[in-house]
Structures are given as structure tokens and as C-alpha cells.
């Protein structure tokens, strides 16, 4: 048996923005593979480039931004430089995305039902026939999707406008829209940030359920390592536009290798370290303008040394783990 091919393969991606302050390198050499059916968590603090990385995957980077290099392959097909027309037939159908902020991502002037229906009408080849038939079939699917994300009485609520929905319901509607065409890959950008803890769990369970029934891959962007620990097979930690550590969730969380990941884990209160004082990482994320070639974390790192001012490459440290540090700690055997 040959080894399974990744459904999404990002390698050495560079995404830049021209701003009035200078050139911002929001994504700098990111590489990441996602296997079919797998759930990959992407963590990192605000501004680390999570959203921009996956906006690049969706082909949604617009001037003043551009993809400056690297490759993004979806099922072996190169996406960088692909025509808008081909991209459009991919988006929403094979790769779907939910946006970070559900409150602003739904169109306030259109009913929620319409907003699911149009994605079905745009992509679903089973919805065919006369205009009337298509609408009827699509409507049935809309109701089915709304039921799937547990919106009560979908038959009437599909005529509601987004403002008539609660935050959690809007989040679930956005997931329903993303899942309407049964995509192979779902990119969920902070699907739970705005939600309270119980609804947060509901939404994540829902995504997991659907992932298992549809067999799709999920990229879960979050800054909550607890969420990653619970729902993701693998995790990639981003810092200042780079992936600085990645690997199987258990292994990375159990034995973090990069000083930044270690700091992140220390800063989370959990059962294991309740007695220890929570220690936030000192210092600030560097500006993404005029970056020096050395390690991005150097200003905040306790164990830095001279060599850290040189370019630090991603290194393989076994067990499917990679790390961008010259002296990774944590004994990975």
C-alpha cells in the first residue's frame, strides 16, 4: 500500500502586504500538510498569521497583499496562480471556510436561508432541473443543513435575517453554509472564540461529528490549546508568521520542544499545573516589518545564544515532529 497523499500541502508559503509603514511579511515560509480525514489545529497568538495563511489557501488575498512565493497544493493541484474561475469552482465546494467573526460574516440584508441556498445552487450538481425544481430541492437541503447544525424549527427560521439569530446560532449557520456542499476540507477560523463555554463545546462537537460522518479534513484555527488538545490529531504552532513547531497533538503538548510552545503551555492553567503560578511569556511579538533573519522568538527566549541570530530552519526531530529552534528541548526519542 502506498502512503496516503495529503489533501492539502502548503510549502514555504510567503504572503506579504504593502502598507504605508513598509512591507509586512504576514506569512513567512509556512509549510503544513493535512491528511484526508485529519483534524489539524493551528494555534498562535493574535497577529501570528493564522488567518492570512488560510486566506491565502482560499485565494482571498487581495491587493495590497499578495502571495510572494511557495506552493499550495490541494489534492495535488497547485492553487498558487490558479485562475479566478477555477478557484471559484473549488471554493465552497471542495474547500470551505468559516470566518473568524460570525457576526460580520453573514450578510445582514439577506435571509439565512438564502445564504445557504445560493452556495448549493452554485455548486451542487444534484440540484438540477427546472428553476422551480431546483429551488425546491435546494430548500429541502437548506432545512436538512439547518437541522444538522441544530437550528430549531428550520422551516420557519430560514426566512429570518442574521440579526434575528443569536451569536451561537449565527456561528452554526456559518458552519452550515460551509458544510452545505460536503467539502473535503473545512477551514474553521476560530469557530468558538465569540461563544460561551457550553455553546463552544456544542459547536466543536458538531464539527467533529460532521467530520466523522463526511470524512472531511478540518483545519481548526484557535488560540486555545485546550481546544486543540481535545479535538485535533495534529497541531501547528505559529509565531510571527512562521510555523515554529508542529507534530501530533499529544506529543507536542506532552513534550513541547520549542521554547515558545513551552511558554504557551506554562501560561495555561490546567489540572496539572494549578499549583504553579501561571507565567505569561515576557516580551512582545516582533513587528512583521524589517525582520532580522534570525529566530523570531529571540527577544523573548530564555535560552537564546549567539547562533540564534542566524537564519533558523525547520528541523525534523522524529515522530512526525518539526521545530524551528537550534536547540530544541524536550526529549523526543
Amino acid at each position, binding site marked *: 500500500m502506498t502512503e496516503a497523499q495529503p489533501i492539502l500541502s502548503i510549502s514555504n508559503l510567503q504572503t506579504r502586504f504593502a502598507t504605508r509603514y513598509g512591507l509586512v511579511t504576514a506569512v513567512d515560509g509556512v509549510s503544513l500538510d493535512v491528511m484526508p480525514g485529519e483534524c489539524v489545529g493551528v494555534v498562535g497568538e493574535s497577529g501570528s498569521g493564522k488567518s492570512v495563511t488560510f486566506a491565502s489557501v482560499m485565494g482571498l488575498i487581495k491587493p495590497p497583499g499578495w502571495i510572494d512565493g511557495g506552493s499550495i497544493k490541494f489534492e495535488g493541484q497547485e492553487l498558487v496562480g490558479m485562475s479566478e474561475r477555477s478557484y471559484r*469552482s473549488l*471554493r465552497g465546494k471542495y474547500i470551505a471556510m468559516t470566518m473568524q*467573526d460570525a457576526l*460580520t*460574516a453573514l*450578510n*445582514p*440584508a439577506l435571509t439565512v436561508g438564502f445564504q445557504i441556498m445560493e452556495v448549493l445552487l*452554485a455548486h451542487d450538481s444534484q440540484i438540477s432541473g427546472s428553476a422551480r425544481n431546483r429551488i425546491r430541492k435546494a430548500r429541502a437541503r437548506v432545512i436538512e443543513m439547518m437541522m444538522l447544525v441544530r437550528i430549531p424549527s428550520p422551516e420557519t427560521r430560514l426566512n429570518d435575517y442574521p*440579526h434575528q439569530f443569536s451569536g451561537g446560532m449565527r456561528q452554526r449557520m456559518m458552519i452550515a453554509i460551509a458544510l452545505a456542499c460536503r467539502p473535503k476540507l473545512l477551514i474553521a477560523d476560530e469557530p468558538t472564540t465569540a461563544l460561551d463555554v457550553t455553546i463552544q463545546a456544542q459547536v466543536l462537537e458538531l464539527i467533529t461529528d460532521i467530520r466523522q460522518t463526511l470524512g472531511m479534513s478540518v483545519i481548526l484555527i484557535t488560540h486555545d490549546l485546550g481546544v486543540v488538545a481535545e479535538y485535533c490529531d495534529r497541531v501547528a504552532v505559529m509565531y510571527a508568521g512562521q510555523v515554529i513547531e508542529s507534530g501530533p497533538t499529544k506529543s507536542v503538548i506532552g513534550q513541547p520542544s520549542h521554547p515558545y510552545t513551552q511558554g504557551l503551555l506554562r501560561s495555561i492553567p490546567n489540572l496539572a499545573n494549578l499549583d504553579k503560578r501561571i507565567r505569561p511569556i515576557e516580551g512582545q511579538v516582533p513587528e512583521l516589518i524589517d525582520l532580522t533573519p534570525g529566530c523570531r522568538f529571540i527577544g523573548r527566549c530564555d535560552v537564546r545564544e549567539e547562533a540564534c541570530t542566524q537564519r533558523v530552519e525547520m528541523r525534523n526531530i522524529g515522530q512526525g515532529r518539526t521545530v524551528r529552534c537550534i536547540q530544541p528541548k524536550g526529549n523526543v526519542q
Partner: protein
Amino acid sequence: MNFGKLIERLAQLIPVLLGVMVIVFFMMALTPGDPVDIMIGEQPISAEQEANLRHDMGLDLPPVERFIKFLGNAVTGNFGLSFFHRRPVIDVIAERLPATIELSLVSIILAILTSIPLGVLAAVKKNTIFDRVSTVGSLFGVSLPGFWFGILLLMLFAVHLRILPVSGRIGYAYEVDAVTHLLLIDSLIAGRLDTFANALSHLFLPALTLGLPMAAILMRVTRTSMLEVMSQDYIIFAEAKGISRTRILIRHALKNALIPTVTVAALETGSLLGGNMIVETVFGWPGLGRLVVESIFVHNYPLVQAAVLFYAVTYVFLNFFADILYTVLNPRVKL
């Protein structure tokens, strides 16, 4: 929209209208010139006859008393007789109104039909030559004085090129049965395409002059709100759904961008009322605007007062209508 709010809005009308009436009445009373003198002109007339005439016209009373009497009558819908026509003011106004309505409607439709597509295009082609040219164009549109632009058009199309008539509403040879009193519609009802074409040729230049500032403003508003809307998250999300660009523009963006545009259009219709007076005078258009201007010159108090009251009510209702439209278009707002 609940009933209490509606009553409240209507009640707000009263002080506004009262204020308008006070201003108009006393401005007219303070302008030099005497309507009785103007009416008499050069005719030989005795002092007694003149006093009778003055009494008939209600001008022998002091201004404050006249004003109170006028208000009392106005409440019952009686605006008195027009000084010169010797007919009820209401009748004279009603006779002139259709011409003004026709001109205004055509101007508004023309303005909306051109400005919205142009505004969308300017937003889509932001910072291109098209956008720049249309920006300069709309600046001209807003700032050109109507009388000047109107005369310019007249000189070009009516005097030099001789392809459009100089003034009036319809040629003498054309006549149709009045059904709606709007010539374009009446001529179509009568199946008279020649009359329709003639009416249209008379309408074109005044409608262009009247509609230009409105078109310019609406285009700017459309452009600005389109740009604002196009940068919203829901547009990016629509793109992430793989919806075609045209659909996104029309279904997702325009629907939101039109909310301010339509509201401004309703408000601008109010300013159009003022523009009517100038444009109708320049183009000899037999409408209410020209009637008011003429009446001001001859101190025809009852007519001016009634017409201004009519303008004020229309203006206030247009504002009111703009508010309602805003709520209807915007599902987030409940009135």
C-alpha cells in the same frame, strides 16, 4: 412601524409647517411693492375703487390679523383666491401641478437609472481613469448652477443644433385627452407616438438640468457605500463560498449599498422641488415652480403662501418616507 411613532412623526409636522408659514408670510409682507398697485397698473381708477379692491383682497387689515385669518382659513383647506386669476388658489395650483410632477418624475428616474450603475462601476473600477473622470464629473454636476447649465443646454441643442425645442411642454399641433394629466402617459394611452415623442423632446433638456445634481450626488453616495460594503467580511465570506463576482456585486453588495442611496434619493427629491422653480423658469415649463416665481414678482400672496405650504408638506413627507424606506430596506432596523 408602530402607530404611536407615526402619530409622533405627524405631530412633529405642525411646528415645522407653522414656522414655514410665518417666514413666508412676513417675508412677503416685508418685500417692497403693493399687489394692488401692480394690479391697477396704468388704469385710471378712483380712490374708492382702489379701497374696495384692497378690501376684497383682504389687504386692508394689518399684517398680523391677515396672518391669523390666513391660518384659520388654511386649516379648513381654504387658501383664498389668487389675486390675478380671481379663481381659488387651489384650482390654479392643481392645474399647474401635473407638469411639475411629470418633469420631476422623469428627472428622478433619469437620475436614478444613470447614477446607480455609474456609482457601482466607479467603485468596482476604483482609482482607474473611469473613476477619476466620474469623480470630476459628479463634482461639476453638483456645483454647476441649474440656470447656467440649463441655458447652456438650450443654446447648444435648441439654438445652435436646433434638434430640441426651446421652451414649453408640448407643440401646439399635439393634443391628447387628459387622463393622468401626464403627457407621456396620456399620449401612450391615446396611442399617439408622435405626441409622446414631441412631449419627450420638450422634457429632455429640463429633466436633464433638473436631474443632474441629484444624479451626481447619488452617484457619489453609491460609490462610497459600495466601497464600504465591498470591504466587509460578508463579501469575503461570499467569495469564500465560490459565488460568482456579478452575483456578489448585485446580490450581496448592491443590496446593502442601496440603503443609503435610496434614503438620500428620497431626501434629494426634496431639493429637487427648489430646483424646479429655476428650471421651469429657464425652460418656460408651465408648472408650479414657474407659477410661484411669477407670483412672487407680482405679490400674489395667497398663491405663494399656498404653494410654499404645499412644498413644505411635500418636503417633510419625503423625509418621513426616506425614514420608512430606510427601515424597509434594512432588516436590522425596526422603526
